[in-house]
């Protein structure tokens, strides 16, 4: 690439600042095409309003960007330089002078630019331009310029010479991947030569956009446990459907990272198909009623249910209540069903969650989330379901008052209205500390749920 080619390119790059007002009929034709008259597209009746909303939205965006500058990929805020109107651009002589001044300033970076310029007459400036500016271009072709990968057989020196004087790389255009376009600042490319020599606003340190999010969420959950060994006795344990939720406060550290805490309530536990034995009791106070007494096994992997209230008429049958196989009586007419124990544990949780936005598509953000929770046991209830009845019988003994759990999830956030967004997050919560102190079998609850909630960002 010759110096003449470079000079020609520089001259014509001023066209990047070209602006021209469209003819009024352009908008009418765009409107009619959007309405279906141009390309005979069938549009829904509300599309006109949608298009109008989009135009307003785009205008709002423009206003915002013009107010605040834009965030570039390198973490700095750059400002769009407004090209001068066509009629105001004076090209002759001035551009050459500014061009040469720029060359001298950069060729002698340690010197005061005005002093350096003052020592050189304007005639010399024009002559210096062709050499000094080319050196400047070569020097400036550092890592900030993305060089295209040339793998052809052309002499590399010639290619590099060409590339260094070119504007910032315009990444390959792919019509099918509009959403994947990298948004480089087009300011340099849109500014005429004479404007490039004017002082630009200096780089402003990247200011992180912090914000806070509050919200509430809830999920039906499936809760069960991880145990280190079999339960005592012959009971069969299974998970249970329950629920949990709470309020959260999130600090958005930047566009990708969020730190979240809050207060949640979660129910854990299990269902135990335990064994029972039912016998007819004779000779008691109400022998003529045909009273049945039923023994139910109350020990399992979580612990032993300590009854503080026995259902039905068992309070009168104290004789049978001293053993592990406690005596209950549900109904004389409905004995013989399979007894089922529900051991429900309610925990107040204070989680600390770190979220990372993996990607965003069409305003839908997808997060990976993980963290730990401190858990305090606030509810400990055991219920006995048998023969169609469900009665509270006591609580599981030997449980820790506090425990630590970990959780992880994949969340999806969808904007709903202004600052509100909806978040749906499948999440697993697993206790990393044993909750039963007295049992020989380790018992660690876990739960799965799809937490859904509404959040407000401010």
């Amino acid at each position, binding site marked *: 690439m010759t110096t003449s080619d470079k000079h020609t390119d520089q*001259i*014509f790059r001023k*066209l990047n600042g070209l*602006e021209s007002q469209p003819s009024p009929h352009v908008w009418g034709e765009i409107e009619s095409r959007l309405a279906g008259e141009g390309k005979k597209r069938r549009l829904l009746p509300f599309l006109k309003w949608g*298009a109008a909303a989009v135009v307003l939205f785009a205008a709002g965006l423009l206003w915002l960007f013009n107010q605040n500058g834009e965030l570039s990929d390198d973490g700095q805020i750059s400002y769009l330089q407004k090209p001068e109107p066509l009629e105001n651009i004076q*090209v002759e002589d001035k*551009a050459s002078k500014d061009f040469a001044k720029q060359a001298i300033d950069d060729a002698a970076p340690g010197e005061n630019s005005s002093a350096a310029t003052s020592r050189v007459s304007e005639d010399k400036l024009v002559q210096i331009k062709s050499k000094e500016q080319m050196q400047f271009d070569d020097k400036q072709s550092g890592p900030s310029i993305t060089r295209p990968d040339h793998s052809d057989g052309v002499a590399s020196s010639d290619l590099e010479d060409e590339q260094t004087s070119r504007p910032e790389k315009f990444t390959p255009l792919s019509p099918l991947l509009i959403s994947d376009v990298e948004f480089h*600042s087009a300011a340099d490319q849109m500014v005429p030569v004479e404007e490039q020599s004017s002082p630009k606003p200096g780089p402003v340190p990247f200011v992180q956009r912090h914000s806070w999010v509050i919200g509430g969420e809830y999920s039906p959950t499936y809760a069960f446990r991880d145990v280190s060994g079999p339960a005592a006795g012959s009971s069969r344990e299974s998970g249970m459907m329950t629920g949990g939720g709470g309020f959260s406060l999130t600090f958005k550290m930047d566009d990708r990272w969020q730190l979240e805490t809050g207060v949640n309530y979660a129910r854990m536990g299990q269902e135990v198909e335990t064994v029972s034995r039912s016998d007819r009791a004779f000779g008691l106070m109400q022998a003529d009623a045909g009273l049945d007494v039923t023994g139910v096994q109350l020990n399992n992997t979580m612990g032993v249910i300590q009854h503080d209230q026995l259902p039905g008429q068992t309070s009168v049958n104290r004789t049978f209540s001293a053993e592990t196989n406690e005596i209950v009586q549900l109904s004389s007419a409905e004995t013989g069903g399979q007894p089922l124990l529900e051991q429900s544990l309610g925990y107040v949780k204070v989680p600390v969650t770190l979220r990372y936005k993996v990607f965003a598509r*069409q305003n839908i953000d997808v997060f990976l989330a993980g963290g730990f929770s401190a858990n305090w046991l606030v509810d400990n209830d055991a219920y006995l379901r048998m023969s169609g009845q469900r009665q509270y019988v006591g609580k599981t003994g030997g449980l820790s008052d506090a425990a630590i759990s970990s959780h992880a999830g994949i969340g999806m956030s969808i904007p709903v209205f202004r600052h509100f967004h909806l978040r749906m997050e499948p999440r697993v919560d697993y206790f990393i500390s044993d909750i039963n102190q007295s049992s020989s079998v380790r018992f660690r609850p876990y739960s799965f749920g799809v937490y859904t909630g509404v959040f407000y960002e401010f």
Partner: protein
Amino acid sequence: MFAPKMLGVCLRYAENRESAEDFLQDGFIRVFEKIGTFKFQGSFEGWMRRIMVNMIIESYRKNRTTTAFKDDFGDDQTLSSEEDTDETSHPSLDVLLQWVQQLPVRYRMVFNLYVLEGLSHAEIAEELKITEGTSKSNLARARRWLQQKVREYNNNKAVRT
């Protein structure tokens, strides 16, 4: 608000204002269709510009196979290989635009994409479905023709003064 800038982009790729406004219409339709894909992570203007240029490239590729373009310089526009370009003055934007618009479309496309958009020859070759050699050749011919225009402009200016 962006329309004047976007029309400026279209004018560089078109052979006249009418064609440029057609490009602008198609581009804005595309913008409205794709507005949902804008991720607020960069310049909205840059995003629009990219859509415009993509659309123009698509149009070029499509029409190249169905339309006979004026594909070479006229007889009165023979190319010169002189290198002594007068660098003392620059034509106005209007004049520069006229010259670019007078380029045959394949030269104009390559010149715009290389010089004004900053694409490499490899990238241009991929976008326009041509070889890199063709891209380089087209660029060289476009440059030479434009350089000749600049020289003629400066010579005429010198005669007038």
